[in-house]
């Protein structure tokens, strides 16, 4: 299959692994930023085939995992209102809020619908002028352009019954926050290919230079990951700290400038709380003042909801790469995909869920 089989070739994979074993002389610590990359690593068992002592640190790059609790609680409060159709990407439906989740709300009568693109929500609003249609707009830079386009389209149609709960987050501030943490073990990054397809990699160059850390823009197929890891190790072994692009078939240095223009038109940078990490300055996007009429949080007056914390869950440390899911006393016992305590166990991209699906147990830890 064009563009798929080529990146899943077992012979090439073994060749890359052999080359990696020959290249690595130290137990390097590399963080893959994106949850999609974590999923491939764990589902393919790649991290267990790495040279002895070398470890992948699974980063905070799962948009479901880092969506703050107040956003979820707001979404549920809005969904419970009569006359509302709450739309969301599928993964968000099982994420636990303070009291419930969207799947359970749907079972109790709320009109919660899975959509595959934000434009679907705009279409719903146009088809149901008597209903309020709200889209839960979460994710990294990857999903921001489509969400911005949906707002522009809704504005063009003059829709007054469409709004968004916006909780976008940006990758570079999270990376610098990690690198500023004295406990940070990360020696190189695999940057998220789809984020860079939109944004390019120019904003990563100052990070690589300032923190002297190699950054490799990497794709999501098994061979992408293996090649990205190999490129990062080569940099580490030779003492280089540059931004390199493994994902050449999808990413250019300047990214997708039209997509960036749409994001700049509709959104503005703001401080954002990351679930499990805390507030990071200038790490999120919110609707710009000229599009604030589409802000569901204002329209439905849902703010100031206080999360309840679970002291046993170490989601934050997992998200920052400081701890493994298997380090958590709740992992696999109180916290499972059936009853997740924290968001990394909810999302199919979440590190805890990926570990659980792969049958990882504390006894099998390699770290």
């Amino acid at each position: 299959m064009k563009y798929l089989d080529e990146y899943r070739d077992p012979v090439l994979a073994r060749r890359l692994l052999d080359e990696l074993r020959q290249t690595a002389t130290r137990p390097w610590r590399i963080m893959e930023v994106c949850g999609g990359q974590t999923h491939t690593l764990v589902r393919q068992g790649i991290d267990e085939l790495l040279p002895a002592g070398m470890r992948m640190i699974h980063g905070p790059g799962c948009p479901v995992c880092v969506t703050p609790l107040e956003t979820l609680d707001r979404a549920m409060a809005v969904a419970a209102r009569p006359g509302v159709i709450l739309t969301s990407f599928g993964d968000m439906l099982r994420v636990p809020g303070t009291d419930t989740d969207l799947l359970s709300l749907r079972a109790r009568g709320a009109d919660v619908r899975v959509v595959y693109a934000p434009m679907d929500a705009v279409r719903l609003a146009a088809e149901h002028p008597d209903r309020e249609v709200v889209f839960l707009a979460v994710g990294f830079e990857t999903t921001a352009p489509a969400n911005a386009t949906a707002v522009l389209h809704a504005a063009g149609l003059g829709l007054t019954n469409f709004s968004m709960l916006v909780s976008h987050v940006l990758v570079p501030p999270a990376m610098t926050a990690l690198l500023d943490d004295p406990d940070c073990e990360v020696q190189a990054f695999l940057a998220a290919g789809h984020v860079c397809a939109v944004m390019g990699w120019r904003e990563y160059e100052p990070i690589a230079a300032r923190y002297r850390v190699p950054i490799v823009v990497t794709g999501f197929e098994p061979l992408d990951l293996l090649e990205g890891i190999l490129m990062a190790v080569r940099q580490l072994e030779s003492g280089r700290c540059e931004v390199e692009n493994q994902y050449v078939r999808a990413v250019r240095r300047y990214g997708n400038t039209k997509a960036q223009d749409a994001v700049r038109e509709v959104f503005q940078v703001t401080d954002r709380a990351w679930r499990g990490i805390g507030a990071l300055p200038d790490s999120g996007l919110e609707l710009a003042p000229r599009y604030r009429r589409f802000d569901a949080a204002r329209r439905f007056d849902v703010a100031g909801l206080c999360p309840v914390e679970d002291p046993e869950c170490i989601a934050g440390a997992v998200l920052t790469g400081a701890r493994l899911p298997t380090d958590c006393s709740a992992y696999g016992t109180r916290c499972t995909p059936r009853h997740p305590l924290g968001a990394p166990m909810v999302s199919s991209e979440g590190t805890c869920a990926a570990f659980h699906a792969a049958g990882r147990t504390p006894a099998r830890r390699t770290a």
Partner: protein
Amino acid sequence: MTIQCPTPHHDDEVVLLGHGAGGRLTAELLDRLILPALDGGPGPMEDAALLPGYRELVISTDSFVVSPLFFPGGDIGSLAVHGTVNDLAMRGAWPLALSVSLIVEEGLPLAELRAVLSSLGKAAQDAGVPVVTGDTKVVGRGAADRLFINTTGIGQRHGSLHPSAALARPGDAVLLSGPVGLHGTTVLSTREGLGFEGDIASDTRPLHRLVGTLAPLGADVHVLRDPTRGGLAAALNEIARDSSVAVEIEESAVPVPGAVASACDLLGLDPLVVANEGCLVAFVSADAAEGALRAMRSVAEGAGAVRIGEVLPDGPAGRVTLRTLVGARRIVEMPLGEQLPRIC
């Protein structure tokens, strides 16, 4: 950085869609609520039950609630026949008779009902099974989603072909009769207008003739299962659990059509968990594996039959593992409930 994590409060008081998805939630509903209420004793969960007092007769019932009613490769009418015929076939049985029960929502165009029933009648005729009884109910608008169909089938077993989910043995070969993921991907794509439906079609078809080719192998055929809801992952986990064995399959050996792989990649779904309606998994003695493959390939339904794995000589009972493309191993879990498309 501070570390914060909330405690979710789970709603266990109402039925969720996931309870009907064929995964762990379905098993929980069966174990905790349905079976205790019906005096359901312990034992394997089979596709069809032996009719008490009649050693060679099996019975199976199934309800069909698919949306949309029509999809590339089939419709709810043909599916209602194939689903029950196949459940009988997985116990080594030839279908003798079907009942058909319709629950129709007020307002359904008669033309659509006619088209569904015409398809159902043709599917039954093609399968060689008569529809001998039935029932029709009409409910008010909003009380059902257009049309629900229940079919119940009685079947007679082939001579010494007595497969059961509890009969997998260490050393067995695991065979798959054809590609996976077609039905679930087609229905999802058609329902949501995702655009893949031009490239794929449901694999819905009757499998009793395919099972008939295995009849000469008799007792060497230990388990037959059609991996419908929950896909191959659920089927293998159920067999591993009911037989108390460890199963291992080879990722590169599992046939996933290109369009299915593309759709699943785009949506973040796992082809191993997507529903099928026209393939089966067979656990057969290692010595009989080549003969079984030849037999299956002798009919169109099994033309793509392949060996995908084995029952391990030892290993944790109930565990299913997959050897990945890069040579590592991972556990294939029983799916939880609904598959939810990933965000990006």
